[in-house]
């Protein structure tokens, strides 16, 4: 059974989806989803542990067809690190979804909702697992198409979800199509789609214009999918108007997977030696990352709708991942992986907590939060911790990724960039402070809706908060895993932990 884990990781949610669609009762559909995502989470942990223990790459050949001809699923240090993030968030979000979905989605649609939910998770897991460039596209579209549907399901409560989903669809499809064009060009050059095989054959043709064009298309397509500034405009409305559970799931995972795919393609296929990569793509990603960090943070400061606020902050946080990538070093990649992991935890916590408020009050704005610190102290404390982690306060996970990010920049003597990165992340204090002030320092206005909390409501968010704090206090294994993941792409010559 153990040797089948890589395929089961993807197959389980994929095959559970039709069952979920067929199940009429909403409790049954939720139960199936819960069990499936739980099993997927266990599988990814098992894969992670197995990969870390063996230290090698696990390869699974579909249909017993060997690598360049058949499609293979590859679990190396990088994918083993990202899989638990997706399945873990998927699991916790499913836990929370029971109440959120009951509050926000028409009960006749629950079966279809959970089917789309499972497909999204399966698609993301597939993108991470597969070792075939075109297969990535297929999984990308599986997860995206179901994500469009999930976002649109917010329309029962908030009709703005529809145009948001439509714009997401247009831009998402354009991004995916760019990616396919790039892959097509690579296939024309090399005659293979297997990622490892591509990496081997590409150096023979790396000086051709077609190779550069392919890289440009792939990078651009993935920038769109990962919402890198200035290609991020689809993200905020899509997150803000989607059902709360969907926001929590997607904010923590969807863009992260694209970040992972970008790293896999740029470093795993083209390679750090590829001409123009460091000076061209690296500098571009670095600049856009810094710009995104500032734009996102500043936009978050003036925002009053909490979902939009944290969606804007996601833009900024994606900027930090981009900075890590743009540093073009092992430490930078490790920082990107660390932040990918940590940001998923903290944004998950935040959106789950906010989702619970939004499900009760209709929407979650600064006004809704006024004086909420007394009414729902446990939920608000979760938001506080999530916010502190976003700032990067020590003993939270955010601190760990931040120190490695700064270190990556300082290793290359980017003093100014390090300072800018730091200032932008410290600016996060402004919007977190706004929330603290509203929740604790203001009285609850007259006639504001009553908010309540029960353990089942705040537990999912708190699981994430505890993980955030846990990985902030004892991060050594995670740091090791992140460096192992980075060394998959850039060999360990400089900057060992």
């Amino acid at each position, binding site marked *: 059974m153990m040797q089948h884990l890589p395929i089961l990781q993807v197959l389980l949610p994929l095959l559970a989806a039709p069952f979920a669609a067929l199940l009429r009762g909403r409790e049954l559909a939720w139960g199936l989803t819960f069990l499936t995502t739980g099993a997927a989470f266990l599988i990814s942990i098992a894969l992670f542990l197995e990969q870390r223990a063996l230290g090698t790459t696990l390869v699974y050949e579909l249909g017993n067809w060997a690598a360049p001809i058949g499609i293979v699923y590859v679990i190396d240090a990088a994918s083993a690190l990202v899989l638990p993030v997706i399945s873990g968030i998927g699991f916790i979000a499913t836990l929370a979804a029971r109440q959120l979905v009951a509050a926000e989605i028409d009960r006749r649609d629950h079966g279809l909702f959970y089917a789309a939910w499972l497909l999204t998770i399966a698609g993301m897991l597939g993108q991470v697992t597969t070792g075939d460039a075109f297969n990535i596209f297929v999984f990308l579209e599986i997860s995206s198409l179901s994500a469009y549907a999930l976002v649109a399901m917010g329309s029962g409560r908030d009709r703005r979800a529809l145009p948001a989903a439509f714009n997401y669809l247009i831009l998402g499809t354009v991004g995916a199509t760019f990616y396919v064009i790039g892959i097509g060009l690579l296939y024309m050059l090399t005659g293979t789609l297997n990622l490892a095989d591509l990496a081997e054959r590409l150096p023979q043709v790396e000086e051709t214009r077609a190779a550069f064009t392919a890289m440009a298309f792939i990078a651009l397509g993935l920038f769109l999918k990962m919402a890198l500034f200035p290609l991020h405009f689809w993200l905020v409305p899509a997150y803000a108007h989607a059902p709360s559970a969907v926001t929590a799931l997607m904010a923590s995972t969807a863009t992260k997977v694209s970040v992972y795919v970008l790293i896999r393609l740029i470093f795993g296929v083209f390679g750090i030696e590829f001409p123009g990569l460091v000076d061209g793509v690296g500098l571009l990603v670095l600049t856009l990352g810094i710009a995104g960090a500032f734009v996102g943070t500043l936009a978050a400061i003036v925002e009053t709708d909490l979902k939009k606020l944290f969606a804007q902050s996601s833009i900024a946080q994606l900027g930090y991942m981009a900075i890590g990538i743009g540093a073009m070093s092992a430490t930078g990649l490790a920082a990107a992986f660390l932040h990918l992991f940590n940001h998923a935890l903290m944004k998950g916590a935040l959106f789950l907590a906010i989702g619970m408020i939004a499900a009760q009050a209709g929407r979650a704005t600064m006004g809704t939060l006024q004086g909420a610190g007394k009414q729902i102290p446990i939920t608000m404390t979760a938001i506080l911790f999530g916010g502190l982690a976003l*700032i*990067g*306060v*020590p*003993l939270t996970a955010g*601190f*760990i990724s*931040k*120190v490695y990010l*700064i*270190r990556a920049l*300082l*290793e290359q003597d980017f*003093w100014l960039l*390090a*300072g800018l990165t*730091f*200032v932008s992340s*410290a600016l996060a*204090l402004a919007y977190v*402070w706004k929330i603290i*002030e509203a929740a604790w*320092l203001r009285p609850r206005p007259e006639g504001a809706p009553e908010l309540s909390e029960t353990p089942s409501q705040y537990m999912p968010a708190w699981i994430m908060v505890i993980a955030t704090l846990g990985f*902030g*206090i*004892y*991060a*050594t294994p995670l*740091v090791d895993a992140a460096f192992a993941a980075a060394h998959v792409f850039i060999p360990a010559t400089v900057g060992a*932990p």
Partner: protein
Amino acid sequence: MSAETLIYMLLGLPLLASALVLLFRHQPNLRDGQAVGLGVVSAWAAFQLYLLPTGASVTLVALAPGLTLSFTPEPLGKLFALVAGTLWPLATLYTIGYMRGAKEKNHTRFMFFYAIAIHATMGIALSGNLLTLFVFYEMLTFSTYPLVTHKGDEAALKAGRVYLGILVSSSIVFLLFGVIGVWALAGTLDFVSGGILAGKIDPFYVPALLALFAFGIGKAALMPLHRWLPAAMVAPTPVSALLHAVAVVKAGVFTVLKVSVYIFGIDFLQQTGGSDWLVWAASFSILAASIVAMTKTNLKARLAYSTVSQLGYIVMGAALATPLAASGAALHIAAHGAGKITLFFCAGAIYVAHHLTDIKDMNGLGRTMPITYGAFALAALSIMGVPPLAGAWSKFMLMGGALDNGYLVVLGVLMVSSLLNLVYLGEIILRGFFASPSHKWDGVQEAPLAMLIPLSITALLSLLLFFTVDFLMIDFGG
């Protein structure tokens, strides 16, 4: 008792006290009594630790390679722990008298956060690396916030916002960046005598990195980041006394001193001249704060600006980057701590006994409150640097350090500052003893005994420190 046990005791006792405060919240005498008792124990522990040789270390957890939470007492830290540990039981005793005398509410919450703040201060004092220091530094900020806003009215909340705003944002924007920068450059954050940055950083960047620390450590109240200190004076006087004369502000300058001695290294700063600018910044802070202090007629506000000015001395000691100056700065932590806590204790005693806050109303008060005013005079003279009081030594050593370094201007600054001290503190004493009374006071009306005892003890400490200076001197080597 081993040093490790003492470290655990010093960190654990305040936590225990805070837990017991919650446990005994319905028995006020038991609640307050145990806090004083545990305070005495921790004062004893701090004293024992001070006597033990350095070298002990306790590591709680390793966050990531090179990032640990650990405690390594060294002479400076032990001195600070001794200061905080000794003044804690006295301040607690005083607090009990004040809170009951002034009939403040929410006594339990107050005592709880008071103990937590002491825990954070101990953590800062004993911290073995910058990360640990930063964590406890933030903890101190957040645990004192409920104390500052204790009254809960609009003015208190507004002041609390300034307090938290300046301290948190400066530490997160500048200090944290400095910490991460040091870690990225040196690969470690441990406090090592002689510093860890020598040879790891381009000397060109040293002033900038030092600036991150000097302005990141908002608690050191270096102008223009001093605004939070006067704002925090809305707090009940015991808070101002212990926290804003000792724990919080001293934690700030202690951090500055520690960073310059153990992270940059005195020699490294001396060679690169990276701290030259800080000498001027500190000079400005010393003089400007003294001048502002003269314009204030609210007693606590005047004392607050006096504190800002005195903190400048310690920053100056760090900036001069000579062993003598650093020793003087370390001594000033103790000397100013004893002196300023006495002054605040007196201010609180005056408030409890007569409900007076404005200096203009205190004419002739000295004859009604002779003990309080006597203690006040003693402490004020110590702060002015008049022998045979503690402040004389530290000021003397700072001047010596300035001479070593060739900063004759600093001598002038210190002289002028002493004169200004004389003016704004002397005015209070003169009014108290010699001006014609503005009110009709019949006979002696002193504050409760629980307040008088601590303030007498701390006043005498100022005297004692002058003669035991050898015991407190820290040699930072040549």
